[in-house]
């Protein structure tokens, strides 16, 4: 596998079964590199003061992979390689089957989207949608953060459990979606420097929002309820969307998300 990364082999599209297998394998490995990179970024993000050089290099790698994937229309390629012809939900189901390594938790419930082919995968599992909802407190919170941030990247892809996929159409769109994901993920990493340096109360919209928060919402039930009904976004995604006025969330889910955010922030800061 290591050899795959040492040379930038350009795949050729031909009818040979071998080529398709190679393409699929390359895609797989590229995806796993992407997962690993995102994981590293997320772990960086949780450190108080990440090594900036390392973060930049990893983020650039993520961007490179994402650009290549978008350029290649790789979602399409993988589908073809596996014998599917359309972009229907069942094909997408097959896609993610291949890309997800099965683990002990293959019980039809929460699907673990694990990083592949590496020994010692212990922490390297990104929990998807449904599993997120059951995660609440304490030491699982980091996993929650992992899941939410990683999920914003995989948004276009991981709708497996529902059986209904958000049919986002062509590979290009997927690319753009993942582009946003990368931008968000990287923004979150570098953004921490700015958040820490920025003057408090610099964003009036956020200030106003936080002034509404009722302390009585700081309990488990509300949090759980809030999470299940809230749109599937991580705490920082939420802040971003508020800041850029793109969010269209309702008031009650606002509060719940804020509690979630608060709780996670507390854990990260370690208070």
């Amino acid at each position, binding site marked *: 596998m290591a050899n795959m990364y040492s*040379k930038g082999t350009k795949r050729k599209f031909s009818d040979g079964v071998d080529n398709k297998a190679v393409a699929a394998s390359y895609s797989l490995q590229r995806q796993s590199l992407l997962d690993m990179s995102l994981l590293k970024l997320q772990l960086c993000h949780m450190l108080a*003061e990440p090594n900036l050089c390392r973060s930049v290099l990893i983020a650039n*790698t993520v*961007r490179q992979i994402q650009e290549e994937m978008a350029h290649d229309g790789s979602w399409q390629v993988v589908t073809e390689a596996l014998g599917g012809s359309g972009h229907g939900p069942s094909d997408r189901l097959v896609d993610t089957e291949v890309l997800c390594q099965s683990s002990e938790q293959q019980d039809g419930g929460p699907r673990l989207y694990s990083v592949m082919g590496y020994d010692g995968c212990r922490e390297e599992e990104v929990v998807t949608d449904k599993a997120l909802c059951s995660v609440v407190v304490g030491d699982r919170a980091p996993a929650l953060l992992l899941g939410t941030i990683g999920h914003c990247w995989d948004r276009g892809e991981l709708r497996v459990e529902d059986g209904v996929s958000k049919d986002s159409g062509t590979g290009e769109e997927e690319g753009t979606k993942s582009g946003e994901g990368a931008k968000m993920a990287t923004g979150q990493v570098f953004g921490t420097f700015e958040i820490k340096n920025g003057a408090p109360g610099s964003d009036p919209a956020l200030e106003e929002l936080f002034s509404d928060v009722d302390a009585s919402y700081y309990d488990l039930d509300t949090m759980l309820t809030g999470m299940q009904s809230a749109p599937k976004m991580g705490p920082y995604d939420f802040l971003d969307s508020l800041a850029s006025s793109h969010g269209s969330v309702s008031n009650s889910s606002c509060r719940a998300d804020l509690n979630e955010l608060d709780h996670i922030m507390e854990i990260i800061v370690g208070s």
Partner: protein
Amino acid sequence: FVGVGGGNDFQWCFSQVKGAIDEDVAEADIISTVEFNYSGELLATGDKGGRVVIFQREQESKNRPHSRGEYNVYSTFQSHEPEFDYLKSLEIEEKINKIRWLPQQNAAHSLLSTNDKTIKLWKISQRDKRAEGYNLKDEDGRLRDPFRITSLRVPVLLPMDRMVEASPRRIFANAHTYHINSISVNSDHETYLSADDLRVNLWHLEITDRSFNIVDIKPANMEELTEVITAAECHPHQCNVFVYSSSKGTIRLCDMRAAALCDRQSKFFEEPEDPSSRSFFSEIISSISDVKFSHSGRYMMTRDYLSVKVWDLNMENRPVETYQVHEYLRSKLCSLYENDCIFDKFECCWNGADSAIMTGSYNNFFRMFDRNTRRDITLEASRENSKPRAILKARKVSTGGKRKKDEISVDSLDFNKKILHTAWHPKENVIAVAATNNLYIFQDKIN
């Protein structure tokens, strides 16, 4: 086997090793920087615990003309303490990132040491004489009653046990938002530069409350950040010239006479990428971890993950020499990315004559390249080869296929034993190699 750095009879021998023998390495003892002073008489090390240890070379003994003077501890002091930034809720590590000596101007020695945020100027002075026979005070320091003094005497200087004192003379703080990776003393001996991930500042050695920002590559929107500064150095002779390297494998040479803010470089050094070896790791392995001018000032050397390159300052489009440090790692880049070793920052150094260069590798190996003969050698810093004046045996990594006897296979390399910091005596063939918490000193042996 013929060594590197001198004539045909040249060989490297073990001289000394400093540090604990324990298998259990205390994190604070890990050496983070090594530097000889201008004469080579003093050798300073900094560690993760914020301590500086200075070794001094003993005078050569007439009895043993073949072995040079040994280095013994001269001074030890705590340079930096861990700090807490309350505003950002962040701990500032006390690890010494770099030490740079100042040229000696009087009996005392001075050096600059820095951690991630603060640079300190330390003066190290020694006393080996004391005065006795004062008129106005007793031997124990009590003031004498002036009316009791009936005669005058001249105090005399008597020898005493040598006492070495280190005192912080200047503290240059609060000028860096990001982590300081380099400091470099200018040839004017009045100024020095400090560089962090995004900025380079110019200081005057006498002024601590102000510094000039001469390079700023911070983008308006941090999300657009794709490149950071990895190292910077002043030109050894031209006090208006300095260089800084980046994470994208480029070096920019700037002239401070051109503008107050040197954001536009005078020269831009970059080697075009080889498209056939492009991979997702290309950028990471091109990131420059160290840049060093030659003593002559005509060349500079850069270290990236797999190689060392020598550049002629007059040629920007490619290096004049490229040396492969551990090319056998190219096929392992994915694993090295996974375990983060790919981000290790190796340093490099020139010998006094600029005829040889040295850099570290894994498994406690270090490599030396002779620029004239194009010969190279791999040596190991280990306790097994630590008999006094034992000649170091050349090591070899087998790159696949049959492994010969005495060779070590790539998979058996210990990636936790990395030699990131090495230093070469400015005039002689004496080298200092930091292997985690141990400092090895090797010398040449003339047959």
